[in-house]
C-alpha cells in the first residue's frame, strides 16, 4: 500500500504573526517558515505505518511556492520516500488544495491519505474532509490513535469532551491531532540523503485544477484589545455574576 501525506509550508509556530500595516494581509517577509506542526505528525504516522510493514511507500505532497521544496525535503529527511510539489505562487485555498490532491490521488492511487487536521496559519480545518468528499472516501478526522484491522481502519478521534472511536473502510482519509504521536528528530545524514530523493513538480494547470480563490481577504487586523471588567467584593458576588450575569456556570 502507498501512503500520501500532505505537508504545508506555514509560519513557524514560535513566530508571532502580525498583520501588515495597511491591513492587506499577514507580514511574512523574512519570517521563519516550517512544516505545519500537524503535518509533521501526519508524516510521523505515515512512517510508523511503513515501519510496521503495512505501507510500502510514502509520498509527500505540498502545494505552494518553490520554497515548499524545503518542506518536502524535511518530510523526506524524516522518512518519506519521494515528494511531489504542485508549484504556484498564487494563493491556494483548501478547496483548491483538495482538488489538486484528488488529481494526484488519481495518478498515485494511495490506500491512505494522511493530513494535519488544520494548518496553523489559516486555521481552516477543511482540506482533509473536502478531499474525502471529492474522492467519496471515508474520513477519520482529529485522529489520536490509528489501528489496522484488515480492510478497515480503527481510529480514535479527539472529540469535544473526550474521545470517540470509529472504523473507516480503506481507502480512507485520516487527519491527525496533536496527541497522535511525537514526531521524530530529523537526523543530519538523512537531510543529506533527502536531497537525493525524487521530487516531481507539477503546475495546477498540468493537473487541470482551477485554483481561483473563493474567499477574498478584505482585511487582516489585530484582534481588539481586551479591557478589564469589574472588581468584585467577594466570592459570593463572583459566583452570582458568573451564574446570572455572564451565565457561564
Amino acid at each position: 500500500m502507498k501512503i500520501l501525506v500532505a505537508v504545508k509550508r506555514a509560519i513557524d509556530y514560535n513566530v508571532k504573526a502580525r498583520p501588515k500595516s495597511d491591513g492587506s494581509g499577514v507580514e511574512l517577509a523574512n519570517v521563519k517558515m516550517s512544516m505545519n506542526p500537524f503535518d509533521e505528525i501526519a508524516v510521523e504516522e505515515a512512517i510508523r505505518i511503513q515501519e510496521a510493514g503495512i505501507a510500502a511507500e510514502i509520498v509527500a505532497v505540498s502545494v505552494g511556492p518553490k520554497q515548499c521544496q524545503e518542506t518536502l525535503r524535511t518530510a523526506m529527511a524524516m522518512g518519506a520516500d519521494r515528494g511531489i510539489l504542485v508549484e504556484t505562487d498564487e494563493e491556494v485555498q483548501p478547496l483548491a488544495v483538495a482538488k489538486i490532491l484528488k488529481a494526484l490521488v488519481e495518478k498515485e492511487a494511495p490506500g491512505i491519505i494522511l493530513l494535519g487536521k488544520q494548518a496553523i496559519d489559516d486555521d481552516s480545518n477543511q482540506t482533509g474532509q473536502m478531499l474525502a468528499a471529492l474522492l467519496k472516501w471515508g474520513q477519520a478526522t482529529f485522529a489520536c490513535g490509528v489501528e489496522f484491522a484488515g480492510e478497515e481502519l480503527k481510529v480514535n478521534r479527539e472529540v469535544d469532551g473526550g474521545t470517540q472511536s470509529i472504523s473507516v473502510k480503506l481507502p480512507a482519509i485520516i487527519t491527525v491531532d496533536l496527541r497522535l504521536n511525537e514526531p521524530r528528530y530529523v537526523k543530519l545524514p538523512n537531510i543529506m540523503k533527502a536531497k537525493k530523493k525524487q521530487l516531481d513538480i507539477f503546475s495546477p494547470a498540468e493537473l487541470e485544477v482551477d485554483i481561483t480563490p473563493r474567499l477574498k481577504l478584505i482585511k487582516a487586523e489585530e484582534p481588539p484589545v481586551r479591557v478589564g471588567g469589574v472588581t468584585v467584593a467577594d466570592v459570593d458576588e463572583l459566583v452570582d455574576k458568573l451564574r446570572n450575569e455572564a451565565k457561564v456556570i
Partner: protein
Amino acid sequence: MPERESMDFDVVIVGGGPSGLATAIRLRQIAIDRDVELTVCVLEKGSEVGAHILSGAVVETRALDELLPNWEGLGAPLNTPVRKDRFVFLTERRAIPFITPPQMHNQGNYIVSLGNLCRWLCEQAEALGVEVYAGFAASEVLYDDMGAVRGVATGDMGRKKDGSKGPNFEFGMELHATQTVFAEGCRGSLTKQLFERYDLRSGVDPQVYGIGIKELWEVDPAKHHPGLVTHTVGWPMDLKTYGGSFQYHFDENLVSIGFVVGLDYSNPYLSPFEELQRFKTHPAIRDTFVGGTRISYGARAISAGGFQSIPKLTFPGGLIVGDAAGFLNVPKIKGTHTGMKSGITAAEAIFGVLQGEISNPVEANEYPERLKQSWVWEELYRERNIKPSFHWGLIPAMIYSGIDKILLRGKAPWTLHHRPDHLCVRPAANCKPIEYPKPDGLVTFDKLSSVFLSNTNHEEDQPCHLTLKDEALPVALNFKKYAGLEQQYCPAGVYEYVEAEGKMGLQINAQNCVHCKTCDIKDPSQNITWVTPEGSGGPNYPNM
C-alpha cells in the same frame, strides 16, 4: 562513544553568521576555481540561518565587495544607503549635536538587517555547494590522539530535563574535518574551551564586552527618514559608564533602535534593558516611536576588546574567525566587514594547507600572517586606544579619543589595557539603586512582553543550558552581595530570585534565553557557563 554516527568533511564551520558563511563561500569559490573536490559544512544552532543574528546594522561593504563583487546583481538585501550621520550628546532633557568622529562616518555604507544579509549569504553558499545544516548545535569539540581538533559533535536531541533519554532520543553526530572553523560569534561556548585548551589568550588582554539590546519598529511614515543614522552618548548613562545608542531608519518605515552598555559597568543595579526603555523616553527620541509598532526585540553581547584582545587564531586542526575572535571595531561600531574579511582570509589559508602535503596535525599558520597584512589589522590597530580610555569616564575619554584619533592618527606609541568585565562590578552596598520608570505600554515595555517578540523558545523537557558550577553561590554571593545582578543584566528574564517557603532560590527560566551570553561574561565569580541547548532552540528573529 560508538553509538554516535559520524560524517567526514574537508572543512566544518561552526556558526552561520557573516564570518562563517564568508569562510564557506570563499572556500568553495577557490575549489570551483581550481576545480578540486572540497566538502564544506556549516552548522548553525538557530532554527534557520539568520534566526539568531542580531546587529544594528550599518554595514561597510569592503569585505562583501571582495567576496561577491556582484552582490548587487545577486540581489543582496542592501537596500538603504546611509544618507545622513548624526552624533548627539544627550543630557536628561537636551540633545546637543556633536561633530561626528571620523571613524563613525558612514558614506557609502548601508543600513541592513544583518539577519537577512546572512539568509542571503546562506543562499549564495548553498548555490556554491556548501552543506548548511541549521537547527544543529555544535556542542562538543572532538580531539584526535595527538591533541589536535578533528571536528565537532552536535548535541543529543530528546534528552529529558534530568538528562535521561526521552522517547524520541537521538544521539548527536560527529562531524570530522581536516580543518574546523569556529565562527560562533561573541563568547562562543566552544571557542571558550579552545582558549583554555590551547592557551590562546596568553600574552593578550582579556576580552571585554558590551551588551547590545535592540528593537525593531515600524514607524509612522511621516517620521521615517530612510538612510538616517543617529548615535548618541551621554544620558541615560552616567559619565562613568560606557554606553550609547543607535537609531537607523531603513527599508519600508523600519527603524532599528538599540542601546549598548559596556559590561565593565560597576553598579549591579544597572539594567541594560531598562536603560534602553528609559532612553526611549528622552524628548528628542520618543516622538519617532509614538504611533509606531514594535515588531521585534533581542539582545546580544559583542566583543569590545579590539586589537589588544585578539587571541592566537589558530591551533592544530582549526582556527577562529569573526567576533568569536573579537574582530569588532568598537569605535566604528562595526564588525561585519572585519568578521567577513577574517573568514575570507582564513579560507584562503585553509585552502593552502589542504592542498599542500597534509602533515598531521594541520595548522593554518598562514591565516594570522595574511590577516596581519590586511586592512583588518591596520584598522583595528588604529582604534585600539579608544575603548580602554573610557575607563576614565566619558568626558576624558572623548578628549583623549580626539587627541589619539586626530593628532596621533592612531599611532600613539602606547597601548591602553583592559580589565575583565566580571571584576568591575562593585558590591551593592556601595552603589545606588536605580529607579527606572514604569513602562507606558506605547513606547516603553516590560521585559517579558519584550522577550515575547524575540520569538524565543526552547524545548521544555531538556537539561538546563545555563549551568552553575556551584548551585549555592547565586544566593550566597550574587543575591546577598550584588543585589541579584543577573536579574538586572539578563535581557530576557531568565534569572529570577524567588522566595518559596521562606527560602530564597535562583529560578532559571532557560526557555526565555535569547543566547546573548551576558551571564557567561558578567557573573562576578564566573559561576555560570552557557552551553548549547538542543538544536534550533533560541530566538527566531525576523529582520534583525
